[in-house]
């Protein structure tokens, strides 16, 4: 394991590597906080999605669906479908964390999410010794965690004091529209998006808000069955990693969302 003092340079390097990601992550956290304050659930509960679920897209789904009055099982199902990718990240990190103490796996695993995964993998890709790479991951992951919780908290506090005519409940749908529309250039993604949106509208009357889960699954299936692009998926996992919207957008800039 790394030492907080001896490996402080690697911790700091990981933290620095996380900074560009925060440009996308912090506004997303603010928007989630804002929506938590507007939703018909206790604001504290909305904020708690941060430390408990710790995955932006799933948090949005949970807050939106609870606000709309969806059945508890359906909300949980939607969150877990969205977070299934964490199993993939877990599998990738298992290679690097083999033989580490259990407490490290508990903590490092808790902090595992798209940006920390990408920044962490960078460290493990380098030929340095493993404990230095752990320090690199830790530095980035802790900065992300702190920034995320502060951003959601700030958004929640701002949102609570704003008047009703602002109709802030529309901020999240518009945010999601922005995320989705900026991806329409990719044919496979476009297919996934259009199918998911169509199924969601058509199944609006479905009981328990099951339509949302159905739409997500249909969208993923539509994307998967789309014609593969000539320049196919990058082999490196971090490039196909992503559904942390803001974070992913940065991958788009550097590589692809």
């Amino acid at each position: 394991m790394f030492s907080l003092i001896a490996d402080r340079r690697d911790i700091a390097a990981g933290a620095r590597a996380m900074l560009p990601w925060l440009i996308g992550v912090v506004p997303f956290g603010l928007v989630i906080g804002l929506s938590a304050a507007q939703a018909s659930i206790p604001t504290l509960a909305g904020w708690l999605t941060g430390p408990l679920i710790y995955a932006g897209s799933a948090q949005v789904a949970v807050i939106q669906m609870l606000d709309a009055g969806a059945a508890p099982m359906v909300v949980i199902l939607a969150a877990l479908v969205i977070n299934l990718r964490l199993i993939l990240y877990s599998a990738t990190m298992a290679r690097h964390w083999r033989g580490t103490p259990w407490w490290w796996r508990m903590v490092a695993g808790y902090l595992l999410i798209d940006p920390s995964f990408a920044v962490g993998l960078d460290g493990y890709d380098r030929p340095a010794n493993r404990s230095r790479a752990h320090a690199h991951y830790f530095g980035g992951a802790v900065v992300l965690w702190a920034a995320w919780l502060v951003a959601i908290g700030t958004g929640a506090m701002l949102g609570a004091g704003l008047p009703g005519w602002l109709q802030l409940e529309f901020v999240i749908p518009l945010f999601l529209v922005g995320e989705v529309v900026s991806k329409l250039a990719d044919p496979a993604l476009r297919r996934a998006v259009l199918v998911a949106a169509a199924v969601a509208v058509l199944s609006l009357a479905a009981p328990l808000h099951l339509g949302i889960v159905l739409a997500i699954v249909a969208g993923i299936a539509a994307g998967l069955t789309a014609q593969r692009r000539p320049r196919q998926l990058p082999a490196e996992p971090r490039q196909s990693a992503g559904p942390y919207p803001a974070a992913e957008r940065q991958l788009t800039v550097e590589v692809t969302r």
Partner: protein
Amino acid sequence: MTVWIVILVAGLGSYLFRLSMIVLADRITMPAYLERATGFVAPAAFAALAAAAVAAACLELGATRAAAPLAALAVAVVAVLRTGSPYAAIFAGMPVLWIATALLPA
């Protein structure tokens, strides 16, 4: 009460996903299509949530007043396409929503 339990269970499930392979498997190669699928999860989820939210709002508002969110949506789409920035949807859409809501008969 239910709200807290839902958030707790969703969080616990997500944590178990994170720990799953770290704890269970030493070395597992994931099938390629699964890795490919992860790239579609967020866009599909976002599209579904956005479409459902807008459609539900329109149904609630009724035929005339529904024009406000629809106008905001249209302007948001155009703004994102023109600027390439996802946040343009909020900055262009919200003012349109406010103005349209104010102008439309109650």
